[in-house]
Structures are given as C-alpha cells and as structure tokens.
C-alpha cells in the first residue's frame, strides 16, 4: 500500500513541473463535469422529479397498484433465480479458466462473452425459436402442457442468458492476477480442496464476487429487450418492472411510469455505491507487485 502512496507522491511532484496552466485545468474539469451533469445527473434527477410530480401520496399509490406490485414481484423472483445460478456458474467457469489450462479454453472465454456481443432482442428471439409454438421444441412442450414462452420460465431463461457473463467476466482477470500459488501452498500444508476454497480462494475473491453479483443483479432487474420478446406482456402476470414502465408510459400515465422507473434508478444508485466500495477492495486484494508492473 505504501507503494501506491509513493507513486501518488511522485505523480504530484512531477505534476507540479509539467502541468498545464491553472485555467486550462479548470476549463477541462468544467467541461467534463458539465457533460456529466447534462447527460447523467439531469436525467436521473428528472426521473425523481417526474415521479414525485404529483406528490408522495400519488407516488406511493402508483407503486401499490396491483399490476405494478406483480411486476415488482416477478422482477425479484427473476433476480433471485438468475443471480445465484450465474454466481455458481461464474465461480466455476472463472476457477477453471484462471487456474487450469485445458484445450478449448479461449473458445470457452469467447462463449462466455457471447451474450455481450448479441443484441438482447436477438437473445429473446433465440428462445422463441427454440421454445415457441412454432419453434423446435414447441409442439412437444405443448403436448406436455409446459409453458415457457410468454410465461415466467421464458423470462428467467432470457435473463440468465443476458446476465450470464457478468460474474465470470469479473472474476477471471482477478483470479488470473492472483495466480495459483496460494492455493498450492494451502494444499501442501494439508488443506483439502474445500478448505482451500473457503479459507484461501474465497476471501481473495469475495469483493470481486460482490461486484459481479451487484452488476448481474442490476442487469437482471433492468433487462428490457430480451425479456420483452419472450414475456408476451400479460398484465399482472408476465410483466417485469422495465416492461411495466413502458406500458404505463405508453398509456400516458407519466407520474406512475416515472414512479416505477425511480425504483430502477434507485437500484442503479445503490449498485454504483456498492461497486465503488468493491472496486476499492479489489484493488487492495491484488498483490503490490502486480500493481507495480
């Protein structure tokens, strides 16, 4: 840690010598902050202003509306299913990729990234193509009375697909930078595989896991495109929060739409705060030597 401090001290020392004139620095800072305010803070503030336009009473009323409550419930259920599954998958995949070498490793990494590079709408359509009435498995599913598309399972599947990379992507570079030596040391000291994971590996990656979980959760709750395709927009049944916002907005109930949207905005703010803490902790958990190099 003292190394980092030393660096900033050096940085400052050099900064004093090679820096731009003060007015240039302030101008740049003002431009950057102005841009940030215009494009990020203003819309965020607008969401809350609009949501509270008709007062707290109306705000709470809008949230208590049965269809909205149902949307909130469905969103929570989706997140509660998706995040643990992706957490498990993410840790397993990151472990395999970071700590072992095997044929097809780079292919696996590419596969994990796939949901990032595919438009969410396409992701949704893939599921319709597989499970929809006209799809490959459609007739079979119908014969057995299993509903996936236009029902909760479809929403969960689409969300899992879209949020698939978040945790794995976060953990792979972290675990790679930490190397295998600590685990090997634990093994030579007689620790079992599970002891090694819970006492050595997990403490080293817990902030990375938190970071990944929070991002995965934010996306799982906020996903629109893929979910929109597979949901069928059945009110009170297959609408998630983002879909509900869209419906309310299209019906010109702005205050209600923004009230529901403010939930997502709040989620974003919490995510941001946790993310900042986690990032700082992750930085601490990477060896000093790595950071120097």
């Amino acid at each position, binding site marked *: *840690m003292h190394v980092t401090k030393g660096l900033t001290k050096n940085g400052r020392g050099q900064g004093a010598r090679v820096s731009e004139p003060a007015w240039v620095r302030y101008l740049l800072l003002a431009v950057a902050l102005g841009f940030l305010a215009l494009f990020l803070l203003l819309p965020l503030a607008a969401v809350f202003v609009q949501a509270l336009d008709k007062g707290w009473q109306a705000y709470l009323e809008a949230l208590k509306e049965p269809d909205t409550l149902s949307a909130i419930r469905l969103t929570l259920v989706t997140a509660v299913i998706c995040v643990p599954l992706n957490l498990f998958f993410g840790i397993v995949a990151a472990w395999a990729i970071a700590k072992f070498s095997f044929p097809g490793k780079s292919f696996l990494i590419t596969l994990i990234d796939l949901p990032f590079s595919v438009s969410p709408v396409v992701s949704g359509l893939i599921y319709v193509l597989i499970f929809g009435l006209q799809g490959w498995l459609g007739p079979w599913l119908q014969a057995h009375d299993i509903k996936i598309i236009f029902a909760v399972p479809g929403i969960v599947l689409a969300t899992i697909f879209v949020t698939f990379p978040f945790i794995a992507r976060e953990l792979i570079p972290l675990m790679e930078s930490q190397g295998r*030596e*600590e685990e*090997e*040391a*634990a*093994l*030579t*000291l*007689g*620790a*079992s595989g599970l*002891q090694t994971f819970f*006492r*050595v590996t997990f*403490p*080293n990656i817990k902030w990375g896991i938190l970071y990944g979980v929070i991002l995965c959760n934010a996306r799982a709750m906020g996903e629109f495109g893929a979910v929109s395709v597979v949901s069928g927009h059945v009110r009170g049944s297959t609408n998630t929060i983002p879909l509900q916002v869209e419906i309310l907005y299209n019906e010109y109930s702005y205050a209600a739409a923004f009230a529901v949207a403010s939930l997502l905005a709040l989620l974003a703010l919490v995510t941001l705060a946790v993310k900042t803490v986690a990032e700082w902790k992750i930085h601490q*958990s990477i*060896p*000093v*030597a790595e950071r120097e190099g």
Partner: protein
Amino acid sequence: MSIDIEAVSKNFGAFAALSDVNLQVPSGELVALLGPSGSGKTTLLRIIAGLESPDSGKILFNGEEATQRQVQERQVGFVFQHYALFRHMTVFDNIAFGLTVKPKKSRPCKQEIRDKVFTLLKLIQLEQLADRYPGQLSGGQRQRVALARALAVEPQVLLLDEPFGALDAKVRLELRRWLRRLHDEIHVTSVFVTHDQEEALEVADRIVVMNQGRIEQQGTPSEVYDRPATPFVFDFLGNVNLFQGRVHEGTAQIGGLRMASPEHASACDAPAVGYVRSHDIGIERQRGAAGSLEAEVRYLLSVGPLVRVDLALSDGAGSIEVNLPREEADRLKLSVGERVFARPRKVRVFVDDYQI
C-alpha cells in the same frame, strides 16, 4: 526422510521438461537443484511435492512408493519464490494455517497452536510482527514467514523453489546463510531450486546441475566446481573462456599452446575446446617461459575486489576475459591498448562439439 527419484519424465506438450531423471536425496541432506531457466529443476521440485505428476517414473519417500500420493498426504513443506503467503491473513494465521486445517482428531488445541506459532516466530526472529499482514512486510520477512509456515506442520521434506530469487542482493545473502544455519539445526531433508551458482555453492551439501531436463552432474560443491564433468557444468559455474584447438594422442594444441592432456590419450587429431576460468589466467608484462599468449588490453573495469580485464588475442582468435585481484592489477598498472601476455594456469580440455 530420503527421496528417490526413478526414471522420471515429464512433457508439457511438445516440450520435454524432464527426461529420464534419476536422483537420490539421502535423509537430512540439503541439496541444490542448479540450472538455467527451462532446465526442468522447478518441474522436478513440483513433482516431488505432488503439485505436478510425472508422465512416467516413480517417486519414493523412505523407499516407499509415493508417486500416487496426494499433495496433502506427502508431508512436504513448500516455499515459493513469490512467498505465496495468504494475503488476507495475519502472519500468525499464516503460520498457524497448516495446523488449523488438520482433521479434528489430530488438530492441536488453540494453546498448542499458539505456542507452536510463537516458537516458530522466535526462530525466524519476527515475534513482534505476529499481527501484521503480508503486505506490510519486506520481502525478506515474507520469505521467513513462508518458511515458518512450511515448518509448522513438521514436514518430512522441505522444498524451496528459488526461495531467494525475488530478494535484493544483500537480503539474499543474509537469508541464505540463515537457511544454512537453520538446516544445521533442524536437519530436515531439503531440496532447493536455484539458478544462482554462488547460492548453490554456498548453501548446499550437494549440488545437482541440470540442463534441458537432464542431470549433468551431481556432487559436493567442490567436486562440481573443481571437476566439472561436462562443458555445460564448467560454463554454468563461473566465468569461462574458450580456446579452440585439437587434441591428438594425449597432447592438446589449444589456442597456440601445447599441453599434456592424458585423459584424451586415445584421441586422434580430434577437435577440442580448452576451458579456462577467468580467474585462472595470469597477466604478465614479459613473455613467460612457456604457455603464454600475446594479447592487447581492450577494456578495464573494477568490480569490487576484482578487476575485469578484456583482452584481444593477437593471433585473431577472439577475446578473453580475465579477473585479476585488485593488488595484482595495481602492480601491473595496466592501461587500455597495451600489449601483454596471458598465461592460462588451469585448462580443462573437452573433446566435444559443445558450443556456448
């Protein structure tokens, strides 16, 4: 505990890290595996530890087959080049780790663990740092903690992978002497890997020189240094000058010098190379009675107690490097461009097509 390595081979893809290696480490000895990077020494160490498994061959501990034993069952202490301390644990918890992961039946009680850890902290002279985290220690302190952590489980074998490689020169020197003293106290069979010949010569009871996945030579430090078995060993242990020549029926004609070479009595006009350590060459102002080579001083550099002199041989056979003691150099008052005579004192002739 003694270690026997029998016909061990290991490949990584097309790269042969170890080919048919046989080695015995007697109980209680401190053995150095010495070689350049890629020579297979670390792979061999990891195979002994069980962190890597051999493609073929056997590992025996105390004469018992241990090839299939899990790392956890081998009772080895492993010290890594980059310490591999658990960064989220204090020094105390790091050293106690091996004791706390033992199954309930054999796990010592809290007080016993505490006593043990403090005994070890005393041994590594870091008692006052028990509550620090690894990130707050210097490299030398970290490596001592790593050693204490490995010793806490009372291993049958101590394996050290370039233990001083990441430390600066002075700390390295201190720590390796400390390791030697420690070994004299506790006598645990130890194998350490190094690419630093000085370190191996100073610390080890026995040196195993490795190259390209094979053992080139093994013996006591003085055997390996004074009687190198192969040109590679000669070259790897210390600075060396090469003189091309030929050898015929026990007489070598090397770089314009004639000398007896009885070990090559059967050679018949074979190409040969004479190896001379850079401190085994004297420099003189006058041509000696026999066996000196005319040369020109190209470069002079004082390195601590030695002066390095680069000479260009007048017969155009290249240049040689000579290390003179400071007093000797002062007496000669050499300067660049002067003509001098170089006299090799000890030449070792190899009939070999080996090239550096």
